[in-house]
């Protein structure tokens, strides 16, 4: 009896960990289909391209997942992504609307500081003023967009062709942040992505912080009754979210080699989509890093695959819509199957 019940427990854990199986399956399926049409898909070059294209999305999505776990949302990440890069560029290279320049390191610090300020305001307005975060972050999205356009004056900045040219070491250092290629032509940027995933996994699944986020998101009222530090945690997730957006913006600037005005809402949208595809609930209390990773992979792979196939843009939209729906559906169906298998296993365990 003790034996069977313990095997059951083990079972339940296994079941829990299978939660995003359906999504993984959908990804494998897409990979198989694309590969069968275009053998270049699984080539090392293309896989590198694929991973590289996930960097910003993935880094920002990890933090966004924590925001969503709390039942909040951060629509401003796209704008902050642009803001951090633009502020860095303007301060470092000049040419925007600021009358002075500063050394690279100062500019980088200022770029990230701007991101943190945005996050801090998001936190303040949501926590203190009690505004819905949809409004707060929508407002800050506009403010951040406006600010970066004002500061950068809609200019496109290119360090390598700037006049005056920054010192060699600065150019190298900046390129080294994200754009430089390591062995096997792996861009430095991808390391950041890997690091972010590992750190966020630990944060979410192996720290008191992550544990409490889960509780707070599941029932904020109960969290208030249990006197969990809801407010502090809200600040923390908004700051993290903005910080990751800022870092991603600067890394992409480094990788691309230039930065100009961007349309910010697109990234925010993709990021939230990835998190939700990954099984997080917009009502809070549910969400994992592995799920988020899979959501990011799905979106990135879909774009990559469609580009590989060279389908026209109209059809691409159709595919993206249909495949997203199908993947989440598959995930849902498999979750249901797994759950009922679990119940059956439990019953037979009891009968034994």
């Amino acid at each position, binding site marked *: 009896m003790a034996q069977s019940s313990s095997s059951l427990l083990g079972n339940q854990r296994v079941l829990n960990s299978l939660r995003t199986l359906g999504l993984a399956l959908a990804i494998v399926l897409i990979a198989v289909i694309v590969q069968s049409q*275009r053998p*270049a*898909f699984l*080539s090392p*070059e*293309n896989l590198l*391209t*694929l991973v*590289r*294209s996930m960097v*910003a999305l993935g880094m920002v999505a990890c933090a966004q997942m924590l925001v969503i776990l709390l039942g909040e949302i951060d629509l401003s990440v796209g704008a902050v992504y642009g803001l951090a890069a633009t502020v860095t560029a303007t301060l470092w290279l000049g040419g925007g609307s600021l009358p002075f320049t500063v050394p690279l390191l100062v500019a980088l610090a200022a770029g990230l500081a701007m991101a943190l300020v945005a996050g801090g305001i998001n936190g303040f307005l949501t926590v203190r003023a009690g505004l819905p975060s949809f409004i707060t972050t929508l407002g800050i999205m506009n403010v951040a*967009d406006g600010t970066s*356009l004002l500061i950068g*004056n*809609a*200019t*496109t900045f*290119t360090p*390598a*062709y*700037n*006049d005056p040219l920054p010192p060699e070491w600065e150019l190298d250092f900046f390129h080294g942040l994200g754009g430089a290629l390591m062995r096997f032509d792996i861009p430095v940027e991808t390391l950041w992505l890997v690091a972010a995933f590992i750190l966020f996994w630990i944060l979410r699944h192996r720290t008191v912080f992550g544990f409490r986020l889960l509780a707070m998101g599941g029932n904020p009222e109960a969290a208030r009754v249990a006197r969990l530090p809801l407010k502090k945690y809200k600040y923390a997730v908004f700051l993290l979210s903005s910080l990751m957006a800022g870092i991603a913006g600067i890394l*992409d600037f480094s990788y*691309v*080699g*230039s930065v*100009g*005005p*961007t*349309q910010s809402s*697109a990234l925010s949208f993709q990021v939230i989509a990835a998190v939700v595809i990954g099984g997080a609930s917009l009502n809070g209390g549910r969400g994992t890093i592995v799920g988020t990773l899979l959501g990011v992979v799905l979106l*990135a792979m879909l*774009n*990559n*695959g469609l*580009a*590989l*196939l*060279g389908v*026209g*843009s*109209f059809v*691409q939209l159709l595919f993206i819509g249909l495949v997203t729906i199908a993947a989440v559906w598959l995930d849902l169906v498999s979750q249901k199957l797994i759950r009922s298998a679990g119940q059956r296993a439990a019953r037979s365990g009891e009968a034994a």
Partner: protein
Amino acid sequence: AGVTVPDSAKTHTMPWGEFKLAPRIVEKLAKGEKANIVVGIEGTGLPIQGAEMRMGTAKGCETANTMLPADCRMVGPVNPDTTQQLAELETLLNSGQVDCLALQPPLPNQFTAIINKYAAAGIPVFTLNIDAPKAKRFAFYALNEVQAGTINGEETAKLVKAQGIDVKEIALGSGAPDQPWAQARMEGFIKGYKSVFPDAKFFNDAKSGIPTGKNFTTQEVLNSVTPFLTAHPEVTLFFHTDQGVEGVGNVIRNLKLGGKVFTSGFNVSGAILDSVGAGTTLVTIDQGFDNQAQAPVEQCAKYLTTGETPADPLQYLRPIVITQKGGDAQIDVDAARARLKAASN
């Protein structure tokens, strides 16, 4: 010490009928008040375009001020948004804040009704970059997109021939493959290229351009063109209709396909010129966004002070063709850099 508006400006016969300048404009100019010249574009925050058009507006305004006291202002949503742009134009119209309008509608003929309303209210309207030929506008300033695409195609083909490049297949891509200007450029490119190589093989056609990201950013181009070129080794020439050509150059460099795969396209930036210098980008066309904004602003002032307006409403600006070495009706990389600097300072 005001400006006297000539009779030829107060009423003017256009192909579409009689235009009557609003008396309030005549009066205010007579009093020495400033004329409000408004440049309304599709997206003030669009990469390259937004910044260059702002410069152009400023330059045009300087010239305009030699003719009459004028305030020039650029309006429009930060990113393309038809509804918002339309509402803004309506608001400006009925608050009497515009004395002459230079307008880029989001789509050809899309703002016909509002342009006609401006005309009916006695305000001259010029279009730029995207036209509304059915509307009561005075003139249109832009590239002839098909023609510019054709030139691009011809020049690219000539270079391919001259350099003995082995082109197996050609792909067409765009940040906005659904937009008429993009399709016109692709169409022109095919025509121009085929005038040299009649049997050239195209991977896709003007209606099915490969989408490379609707925000025209390099990031998006990298994420879409890299896999495409990886999967299609037979494609050795990629024509890109807009600023995203910078990204295509990057992709070719990143994939170490320099010397094997080439690109051509539209617009300039430091990186694009670098790629032209390296021989990877064969041809790029500087649309002169600055010129597109500058010309109608100057024309506004000219009309109000002299009553003159171009006889041909299609004021196509000369496409500035940039190649590595320059040539007939072309400029080389260095000259292009100088121009770029001028256009953005």
